[in-house]
């Protein structure tokens, strides 16, 4: 304890020094105390879901409404979503990650998620909150190279103590989602080690832990499913009032970040493995749920059609050109068409105003997304009014895009850039309100007809001009 005190003081000292050098060194004011800090991590999905069950007390003398949850740097960078509510009520806290960080003495960077209470908490009163936190930081395979018949093991790094800028009275950590856990290089101290129980892999409970106590554990668990990461998604949605359709075209760059093959890929071994069990730590198919009543499906990649796809009902099953083992990547483009009436409503107050409602994602199940660019192409002559999204976006841009027969201003192209998504978040919708007057609608075919007419006329005139010299 004493040692950690010294360390703590030195941190503050360093913090003071650093404050001169880097202005954004930041330590949350020690206004809170964690009475109870229960953390649970679910690793059954390619994304990681954490739930926090906290009871906290305001130990300052003033009412407080800002509570910080500390996150390690790489987790913070791949945060996809954080929600929190006061336990037992419907009172939600405003949650966001903040750019400020603390650099500890050993160089570790701690970042924060800021939870803001709807009403300030009075001094020396306690409150219980439930927080859900999702991030898309992929686990690392351990060992990195395995053979096709081996079971894949993945590893994550977690602090065996609470990572918090506040002191904690009681803490426990539980990891679920697999039935095969063990700790890599466990410490000699038995009490610090994780224990495999029926409810998962448990650390703690630990009592009276100082703030910023860091002791990292590497937890390995068996997971024989591919770890699919979509490093890039370009989702283009084309709205056509004339054809009364909405056309989707999505470009995926997908990578399996799981364990790599030990001695290269042997087709013979693969065939034998497939005969034994149809699944393993590689992907042979992707299932993509499409909106209802979709038509005109296609799947291509950069060298042509991928003929090994099938549409059954509302699911598109794609078999990529080759099985995707750890370290391998693939990219493909899929597309389909839906009737426009499924996603478009007329504004009841204004005849020329429409409201468009598009789901954010339709991608393969159990995958995470590093970057997703959702682009909506409104018809030429549209005036966009407003946008709204269920998911927070990084950036949104409106640009013109010249496509087929766009001879005036081009399509209105609205792009939303999302980061760190996962499949289940895809249901969140993107709303766009725009104005499309009837005149603009009829302007386009008329102008095309005009160009045709001018073209033909000039051809006729040129043909009749006599250029011969006699």
């Amino acid at each position, binding site marked *: 304890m004493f040692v950690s005190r010294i360390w703590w003081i030195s941190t503050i000292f360093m913090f003071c020094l650093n404050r001169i050098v880097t202005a954004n060194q930041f330590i949350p004011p020690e206004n809170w105390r964690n009475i109870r800090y229960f953390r649970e991590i679910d690793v059954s999905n390619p994304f990681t879901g954490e739930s926090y069950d906290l009871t906290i007390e305001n130990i300052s003398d003033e009412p407080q409404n800002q509570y910080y949850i500390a996150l390690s740097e790489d987790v913070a960078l791949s945060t996809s979503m954080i929600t929190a509510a006061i336990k037992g009520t419907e009172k939600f806290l405003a949650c966001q990650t903040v750019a400020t960080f603390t650099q500890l003495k050993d160089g570790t960077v701690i970042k924060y998620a800021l939870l803001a209470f709807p009403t300030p908490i009075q001094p020396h009163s306690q409150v219980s909150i439930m927080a859900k936190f999702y991030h898309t930081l992929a686990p690392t395979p351990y060992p990195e190279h395995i053979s096709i018949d081996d079971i894949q093991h993945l590893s994550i790094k977690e602090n065996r103590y609470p990572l918090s800028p506040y002191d904690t009275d009681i803490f426990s950590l539980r990891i679920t989602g697999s039935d095969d856990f063990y700790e890599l290089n466990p410490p000699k101290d038995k009490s610090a080690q994780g224990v495999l129980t029926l409810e998962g892999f448990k650390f703690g409970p630990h009592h009276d832990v100082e703030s910023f106590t860091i002791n990292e554990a590497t937890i390995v668990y068996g997971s024989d499913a591919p770890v699919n990461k979509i490093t890039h998604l370009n989702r283009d949605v084309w709205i056509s009032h004339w054809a009364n359709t909405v056309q989707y075209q999505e470009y995926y760059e997908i990578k399996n970040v799981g364990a790599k093959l030990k001695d290269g890929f*042997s087709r013979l071994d693969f065939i034998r493995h497939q005969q034994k069990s149809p699944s393993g730590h590689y992907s042979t198919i992707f299932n993509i749920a499409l909106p209802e009543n979709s038509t005109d499906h296609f799947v291509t990649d*950069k*060298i042509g*059609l991928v003929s090994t796809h099938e549409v059954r009902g509302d699911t598109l099953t794609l078999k990529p*050109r*080759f099985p995707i083992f750890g*370290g*391998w990547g*693939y990219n493909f483009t899929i597309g389909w068409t839906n009737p426009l009436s499924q996603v478009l409503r007329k504004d009841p107050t204004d005849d020329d105003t429409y409201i468009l409602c598009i789901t954010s994602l339709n991608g393969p199940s159990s995958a995470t997304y590093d970057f997703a660019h959702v682009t909506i192409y409104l018809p030429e002559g549209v005036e966009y009014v407003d946008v709204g999204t269920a998911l927070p976006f990084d950036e949104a841009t409106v640009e013109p895009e*010249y496509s087929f027969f766009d001879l005036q201003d081009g399509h209105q192209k609205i792009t939303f850039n999302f980061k760190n998504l996962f499949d289940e978040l895809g249901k969140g919708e993107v709303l766009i309100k725009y104005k499309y007057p009837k005149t603009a609608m009829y302007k386009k075919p008329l102008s095309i007809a005009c160009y045709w007419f001018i073209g033909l006329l000039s051809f006729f005139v040129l043909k009749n001009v006599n250029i011969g010299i006699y």
Partner: protein
Amino acid sequence: MSTAVVKNRESSSTTIQWVQSILKTAIFVSIIFASVSSRLFAVIRFESIIHEFDPWFNFRATKYLVENSFNDFLNWFDDRTWYPLGRVTGGTLYPGLMTTSGLVWHIFKDYLGLPIDIRNICVMFAPAFSGITAYATYKLTCEIKDESAGLLAAAFIGIVPGYISRSVAGSYDNEAIAITLLMVTFMFWIKAMKYGSILNGCLAALFYFYMVSAWGGYVFITNLIPFHVFCLILMGRYNPKIYVAYNTWFVIGTIASMQIPFVGFLPIKSNDHMSALGVFGLLQIVALGNFVKGKVSSGKFKIIMVVSMITLIAVGVLGLFALTYMGLIAPWTGRFYSLWDTSYAKIHIPIIASVSEHQPVTWPAFFFDTQFLIWLFPAGVLLLFLELRDEHVFIIAYSVLCSYFAGVMIRLMLTLTPVICIAAAVALSKIFDIYLDFSSIFFNDGKDKKVEPRKKVLSLITKLFVSATFIFYLYLFVYHCTWVTQTAYSSPSVVLPSQGPDGRPALIDDYREAYYWLRMNTKEDAKVAAWWDYGYQIGGMADRTTLVDNNTWNNTHIALIGKAMASPEEISYKVLKELDVDYVLIIFGGVLGFGGDDINKFLWMIRISQGIWPDEISERNFFTSNGEYKVDSSATETMKKSLLYKMSYKDFPELFGGRGEGMDRVRHQTIRSEDVEALDYFEEAFTSENWLVRIYKLRDLDDEGRNFRDVGKFNRLSEKFLRKRSLNKKPAIDMLI
């Protein structure tokens, strides 16, 4: 009264003209529709994809052009091919095709508001140009005979398989545009020499320039037109019109053709172009002579002519020899020699002989590619002989020259096809002129009232019979063309059609599977060694650096790959490491029964490398003592030790269950697992679903500096030991697998 009649007639003739022009337009629209749509089989049955080998390079070059500026394209140094030499691509290609499609792409995108994908433009390029070819052929044939022959010729060229073979959708090759340009150039040439117009001569020269920029076969025009003029002079048919037409064409065409970087100064240096220069000189002399002839008596002129001719020819031939000797004029190239002596290539240049397009044509191929046109063709030529106008001489010269060349090299069938169409159209339209003309039967102009009804009926029957026969032939022709097009020429050869287990049509997509694997899962700068046939495809689809490709300009480099394939592992590894290779790609058809695989091409690899390293590689060692080419247990040691053999059959016998015996479905020989030695220096990196493409990785150097052979031996020994132990424990475990 009379003026009214004249007016009436005029108005009726104008209406007839109107009807005619509408009919003509309708016929043309349907011809173009037929010629484009019959080329779309490949797109409909497969997809919009670039075919075969060379088109992939053209496509890649076009993409480069579209993404960069035209100047960058001309100065393009491609370091991703012919590693480590690289290729000055901009200076060693014919840019016409890429420039045209790039231009079309820009026009569509910038001016018409149609941003079409460049791939679709490239795929639809050949069909679109076939429509223009049909029009040019029509115009050309109109000059030869008349409009009806022209329409027939246009219809023929539109659907004749000999031309479709190189111009289906996706076959984005130089020939696709070259035949169009050939016909346009010839059309303008005929017009120029018929009317003596400078303008048409210029146009012929411009299109000749276009042709030079598009296809190496431009030499054909360079020789055919002078040959035509030469024939005319010999026939005593010189006239100022020929002088005007030829000289305009030659002067402008020659200097224009020198603008193409790849051609450069060839037109004044290479022997292939000398005939044109010679005829140019000859024409000047003939023109002078003609001027003198007009002034001097014929007897004296003869003497003067003979004497000056002899001296001139002597000086010319001597000069030619002297210049060739001094090295100022390039000697004839290998491909040229193989044109005259069919066995030349086989003996001297195996790489030329190894290309299937350079093989002589078999007789059925003529019928297959042109059906009934092939026997109408001589008839047409004969009809032209009977009339023998100046332009007819051209067609006759064309047909004679090309018939010979097509007999030598199968790819020159392509240049023969247009003249077959023209000649056949002339013959057929002549037949129709006579036998479809029923006017004498139905309308009596009062001239021959004496004709008996019996005779009338007889002639009607003959006419009906003959024309019905030929219409039936035409029907058969259309049927045949469609059939040939869809069965023989509409396969992209990148994707192979097959049938699934339930009998539904399925595709074998192994090439793209493996190429895409390369593209996605290897380092950006990985070097892939493969036999040169696949060079362009790897460059285009896998986007990786290749060592050799279909632009076979460096025989030694190709031989090096051949040597690596034919040598034992240790030597191959050394050769490939020196070339900085990361992956080796081979094609293996044994599982699928695909005949065009590398084991079947192996003999060419051996022959080519034997030409360079006769003491290291010997073709004899790959044949059994009976002189058979065997891959089963009776194969020679050299064969079994060769890299290609080991790579092809690795794991192959085990695929067919535990017996360790596999039947090679191409060579119908049984491969036993004892015959296939393990690979120590290479590791299997990828094998496609049907084993068609196998990719191997060169192992990195061993950590302990051991030799791979020893490492492999050690590993196998320890594995055997382990297995023995496990067998002792659980004897059934291997049987289950």
